[in-house]
C-alpha cells in the first residue's frame, strides 16, 4: 500500500553509505555503499541476523555514528549529528528513574527549553495516546516492561519528529505484550503519519507493520534486498497472504 504524499517532510535519502569497524585488528565492513530512499510517511522495516549492520545503519541515521563515506539526506539536508526532526526509540526504555512518567515524556521538549506547561500539556496528549493516563505520576520502577517501553515511545512522539527511528523497540517484551504493542505502533503511525524506520529481528513484526522490508544478509558482499509488503491494513497475521509473505521472507534467509 502506498502512502499519499501530501508533504515532503520526513523523506530520507541514503547515498553510498559505508561503515567499517576494527575488530581484533581486522577491518570489518558493516555497511558497503548502501543506497536507499525512504518515502515520507513510509514504514520501512530492516531485518537481518545479528551483526548484519542494521543497528549501525539506524545509529547513523540518528546521528549517533558517523559513516566512513557517503551521506544521509533528510528532506534534502545532509545529516550532521543528532537532530530534532528525528527521534529514536531504543530497545531498552531508557527512562530517567527520578522523573515521573509525565516528566520522562516531557523530557525531550524540556531539554529544548520549551515552557514547562506547554511541554506537560503535549506530554499528557501522548501519554493518553499510549494508554498510560492513570500512570502519569508513577515512577519508572513502578512500571512493567511493556508500560516502560510505551513511556519511551510517548517521549519520542512528544517532540513530534518527522522520522521515528526504532531500534528493536519490542525485542525485550514477552510475546503477548509484543503483539499488543505492534498493534499500538500501527495505530500511532496512522494517527501521526510519521516516517518510521524499524530495526527488528522479528519477521512477523516487519510484515505486520512495514510498507517495505529491507533484508540485510549476514554475508558481506551479498546484496541487500528490498521487499514490498502489499497487504491491506489493518493486517491479519493468520490471513493466507500474510503467511505466504512470511514464508517467502523466511526462505530468503534460507529457513523454512
Amino acid at each position: 500500500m502506498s502512502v499519499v504524499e501530501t508533504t515532503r517532510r520526513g523523506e530520507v535519502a541514503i547515498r553510498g553509505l559505508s561503515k567499517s569497524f576494527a575488530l581484533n585488528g581486522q577491518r570489518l565492513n558493516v555497511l558497503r555503499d548502501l543506497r536507499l530512499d525512504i518515502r515520507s510517511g513510509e514504514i520501512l522495516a530492516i531485518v537481518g541476523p545479528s551483526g548484519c549492520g542494521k543497528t549501525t545503519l539506524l545509529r547513523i541515521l540518528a546521528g549517533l555514528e558517523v559513516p566512513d563515506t557517503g551521506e544521509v539526506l533528510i528532506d534534502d539536508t545532509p545529516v550532521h549529528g543528532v537532530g530534532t526532526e528525528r527521534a529514536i526509540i531504543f530497545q531498552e526504555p531508557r527512562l530517567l528513574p527520578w522523573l515521573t512518567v509525565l516528566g520522562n515524556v516531557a523530557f525531550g521538549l524540556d531539554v529544548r527549553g520549551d515552557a514547562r506547561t506547554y511541554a506537560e500539556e503535549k506530554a499528557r496528549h501522548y501519554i493518553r495516546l499510549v494508554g498510560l493516563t492513570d500512570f502519569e505520576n508513577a515512577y519508572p520502577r513502578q512500571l512493567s516492561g511493556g508500560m516502560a517501553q510505551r513511556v519511551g515511545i510517548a517521549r519520542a512522539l512528544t517532540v513530534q519528529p518527522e522520522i521515528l527511528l526504532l531500534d528493536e523497540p519490542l525485542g525485550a517484551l514477552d510475546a503477548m505484550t509484543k503483539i499488543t504493542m505492534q498493534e499500538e505502533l500501527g495505530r500511532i503511525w496512522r494517527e501521526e503519519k510519521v516516517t518510521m524506520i524499524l530495526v527488528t529481528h522479528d519477521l512477523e513484526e516487519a510484515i505486520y507493520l512495514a510498507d517495505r522490508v529491507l533484508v540485510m544478509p549476514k554475508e558481506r558482499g551479498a546484496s541487500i534486498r528490498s521487499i514490498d509488503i502489499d497487504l491491506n491494513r489493518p493486517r491479519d497475521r493468520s490471513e493466507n497472504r500474510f503467511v505466504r509473505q512470511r514464508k517467502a521472507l523466511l526462505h530468503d534467509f534460507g529457513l523454512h
Partner: protein
Amino acid sequence: MTIQSIDTSPLRRRHEDRAGAMPGQRLTAMGRDVLSRYGLLVGFLVLWQVSAKTGWVNPSIFPPLDAIAAALWKALASGRLVGDVAISLQRSGIAFGAAVVIGIPLGLFMGQIRSVERALDPILQLFRQTSALALYPVFILLLGLGETSKIFVIFWATLFPILLATIGGVKEVDAKLIEMARTFGASRLTVFRRVVLPASVPAIVVGLRLSATTALLLLIAAEMIGANKGLGFQVMNAQYNFQIPLMFGAIFLLAALGLTANAVLVTLQRRLCRWSEVTR
C-alpha cells in the same frame, strides 16, 4: 535500575497495607513493630540500670542511668556543657561544610573527565588509606594547636568519603541515559544538569552519611588529643577527675548528636531519592 512489575512495587504494597488493616489491628501491629525494633535497646538500658543499682557491676565505674541523667542535666542547666556542645558543633560543622562545598563540585568534575580521574585516583587512594589521625601531628606542626588544625583534621577525614562517593556516582551514570538525552539535542551542560547530576544524588547522599559519622569520630579524637573545650575534652576531663556520671553523660550526648546528624541526613536522603531504593 531494574524495572519492576507494578504489583511488587513497594509503594503500592505499603498503600494496600494501610488500606486493608483495621485501626485496632494497626495499633497492635505498630506496637509489635516498635517492640521488635527497640526491644533489645530497652532491655540493655534496663539491665544497665538494674545491674548498677543491685551492685552486679561496680557502680562507681558503671553508675546507674538516673545518676548519669542527673549529672548531665546539672552540667547542661548550669551552662557548663552548653559551651562545649557549641564549640564541638562549630568544629565539626565547619569541617563538614567545607568538605561538602569542596568535595561535591570537585567530585562532579573529576568523575566527568576520565583522564583527570585516572591521574588523581592513586594519590586519592593513598590519602584515603592514610589515617587522618596519623596526620594530625603534621597538621598541628603546620597549623598550630588552635582551632585550625582541629577543623582541618576533621575536614581532611570527611572530604574523602564525599569526594569518592561523588566520583563513583558520576562514573556509574548509565551511558545509555546520556545517549538518550543527546538524541533529544541536549547540550553537554544540559546532559550534566538533567542526567548526570540527578543520577549521582543517591551516591552523594551515601557519601554525606559516611562523612557525617567520620566527622564526629574525628571531632572526639581531635578534642581528646589537644583541646580544653568541647565534648571530647569533657569526656576525657571527667574521666581524669573521676566524674564518671558526667563522663557517661557526655558520651550519651555525643551519641545523641550522631543520631541526630544521621536522622537529618536520612530525611534528606528520603526526600532527594524518593525514586530510588537506596533508603537504608
